[in-house]
């Protein structure tokens, strides 16, 4: 009975250690008893009362499951006799086979399969490290070649989703003041990109840059700012983000990262469902904040606006952070959240050499800007 396979191997005739085995020829599902012995060059399979003999070289062997130390039996096949199988019960055989054909052990197999990926992961890590050391960012490179139209469209969608539920401030004189300030700052940039600023009727103190050289500033920020110079400083900072294409870069980076994660998780990351989440969690790194600060200082200098407005605003933020825990904002692109420590930044502004400057706006212009939310319209869809 085939179901009564002896569980132990037994030394057969003539002193040579032979193991009991079941041999299937791969042509039909029948199997027959065989003997198997370790030879120098491979496994020798012989049959009682038959001259048939197979020699399976160790290098041609395949085990149905990787051989482990405590394996109780082994199922083998060999490219020498396609489709044929050899089932050898008994722990002794498995252990001895592992000695002759170490490639069949679980450890060897795993190492063989994992090695290319380990090397690949290390190479990837090295590549990323080298790239970031050399200042190369694929996301930024892509952002640079993104068509103007897409960037604008992307930015509008971002504005709509982020200011959802808030009206737009449209008082004509206030808007004119903001436009004048924007133009004055934009003069100093090399790319001559026209910037568009949307003022949102939102009491939260915030400002953010979105793709396509667009900026959102909140009523809360303008109200809490002490002077037009402060607003100019914040505006210059956000324009700095825009000039360096930070919003575009971070969106591309988020999408790329999500795609890579999806790939690594074998597609079960459920990115489709998390896409909104991925897009919402875009933030800037500290280094891009620093870059934006530097751009801001250049813009302010070119526009002959004092950099101290930016410094004053940082101080104000620090004070607010200290006194008002409830003001904790929950939105992405938050000016307060991912930025470098405010003290550090105030210090940087303070170190700027003095240059002749005029106020960002005259008194009338500043008053008009403060009143910009006198008239509002609901955001266009």
């Amino acid at each position, binding site marked *: 009975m*085939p*179901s*009564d396979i002896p569980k132990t191997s037994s030394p057969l005739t003539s002193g040579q250690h032979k193991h009991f085995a079941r041999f299937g*020829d*791969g*042509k*039909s*599902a*029948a*199997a*027959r008893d065989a003997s198997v012995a370790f030879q120098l060059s491979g496994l020798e399979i012989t*049959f*009682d*009362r038959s001259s*048939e003999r197979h020699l399976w070289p160790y290098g041609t062997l395949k085990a*149905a*499951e*990787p051989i482990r130390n405590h394996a109780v*039996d082994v*199922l083998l096949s060999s490219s020498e006799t396609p*489709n*044929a*199988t050899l*089932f050898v019960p008994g722990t002794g055989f498995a252990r001895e086979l592992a000695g002759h054909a170490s490639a069949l052990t679980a450890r060897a197999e*795993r190492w063989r*399969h*994992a090695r290319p*990926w*380990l090397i*690949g*992961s290390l190479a990837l890590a090295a590549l990323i490290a080298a790239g970031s050391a050399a200042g190369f960012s694929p996301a930024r490179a892509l952002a640079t070649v993104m068509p103007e139209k*897409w960037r604008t469209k992307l930015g509008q*969608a971002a504005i709509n*989703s982020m200011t959802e*539920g808030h009206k737009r401030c449209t008082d004509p004189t206030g808007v004119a003041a903001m436009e004048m300030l924007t133009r004055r700052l934009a003069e100093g940039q090399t790319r001559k990109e026209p910037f568009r600023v949307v003022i949102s009727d939102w009491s939260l103190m915030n400002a953010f840059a979105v793709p396509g050289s667009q900026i959102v500033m909140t009523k809360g920020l303008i109200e809490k700012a002490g002077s037009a110079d402060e607003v100019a400083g914040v505006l210059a900072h956000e324009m700095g983000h825009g000039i360096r294409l930070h919003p575009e870069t971070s*969106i591309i980076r988020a999408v790329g990262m999500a*795609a890579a994660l*999806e*790939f*690594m998780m*074998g*597609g*079960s990351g459920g*990115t*489709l469902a998390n*896409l*909104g989440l991925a*897009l919402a969690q875009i933030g800037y*790194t*500290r280094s891009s904040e620093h870059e934006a600060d530097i751009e801001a200082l250049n813009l302010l200098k070119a526009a002959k606006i004092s950099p101290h407005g930016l410094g004053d605003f940082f101080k104000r933020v*620090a004070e607010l*952070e*200290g006194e008002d*825990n409830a003001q*904790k*904002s*929950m939105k992405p692109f938050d000016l*307060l959240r991912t930025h470098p*420590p*405010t003290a550090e930044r105030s210090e940087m502004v303070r170190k700027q050499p003095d240059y002749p400057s005029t106020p960002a706006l005259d008194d009338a212009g500043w008053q008009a800007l403060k009143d910009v939310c006198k008239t509002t319209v609901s955001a266009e869809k």
Partner: protein
Amino acid sequence: MPDAGATANSDQPINITFENRGDRLIGLGFVNACLKIITLGLYSFWGKTEVRRRLWSFTRINGEPLEYTGTGKELFLGFVIVFFAVLLPVFLGGAAVIALFGKQAAGLYQLAAYLLFFMLLGNAMYRAQRYRMSRTRWRGIHGSLVGNPQRYGWTYFWTLAAPFLGAALVAGIAAAATAPTVGGVLVMLALMAGLWVLPWRANTLQGMITNDMRFGDSSLTYSGSARPLYRRYLFAWGGSAFLLLMAATASILVLIHSGLAKSAIDLGQLPDFSKMPKDAPYLRSLALAIFALAGIWILTLILAAVITAWYRANQMNHFAKHTSFQEARFRLDATGRSLMWLAISNWLIAALGLIGGLVLGFVVLQYTGAIPDLPEGGAPAKDPSVLPVLLMAMPVILMTGVASTFAQFRSTRYFMSRLKLDGPVDLDNVLQGQNQGIRRGEGLAQVFDIDAF
């Protein structure tokens, strides 16, 4: 050709057993998860393959093991193709739609994507099954699935889509003719009535796939009809419908009570969160309501699995009983109680794995000090960093990996130790079948996370 040593009489009884000898694949799950982490997830295809090789090998027919001859590389290539041909385009399309048309369009896009995936689901399942069959050997004779995946996929789709769409249509027309509230009730009733298609559908699909199965050159045949399934289904259906009704009522109560649906139950009209007060007590009640809703539906799913366990056991036994190979018939000894316990215990294992991973991750975060401490102002001033996320993810991947491998082992053991084949089989006359030349692994099915065992 009775060679020396061959069994003279080739008509043999078949004895299926599951012999794991104390190895419950916990160690393997651990090793695989570790390798998965350090290879950025890519080892998972090889890890999955090694698990299958072990599980197949534990399964013995007349004392000799089944053999799984698939490779990690095949699964990997299958996935790569699906990733670049289906997933990436869908994903990038979604990103573009959200970016250009806003969130409203995203919902529509997602719906379309899910519909596409659902249309492909049956096809993908068939292909996955075909791959596994072609990679399963016993005594060197491999299995195969010789039918057309598209035919199966299409049947899979329309047998579910048609009754529900039809029911929805009828309800819609009735609602338009009378009143919307009548329509709402009718839709519920129509959906419940639509559920009556399920036993017939399962039986049809099972017949399609079983009749396509070959072991060597010999085919399996399925002769079951759906009728005997319905008696047990009555209880499962009634129980599920009652449960659904209770869960829906409880959800609506929570919605009303929490103010989530302040402006009456305007179906399809989500509350405008931006207009709601964002003070702490309000947020707390909102969080509470969301937890309550999640709890209600998780409980509903668990209870539904419990209620339907008897039916599902009955259905599986029915499938086995009407599947024959040559003169022999399969027999499965699944019972409602044992199946229920299998489902519940596997959930517990999965939950323990997840919770264990989270706790471990938290401990690691604490120990390494990688938790971004809340600064003075309340708003974290630190750089958003991936490090804490990674440190948290690793123990979670590790523990859930161990848990899922163990659960997979338990499911396989359950079925294989209860499956019997009654009657003699002429093994000499089961000859090697044709090689179908399937070169790549499961592709889409992996993405949907469908696994027979």
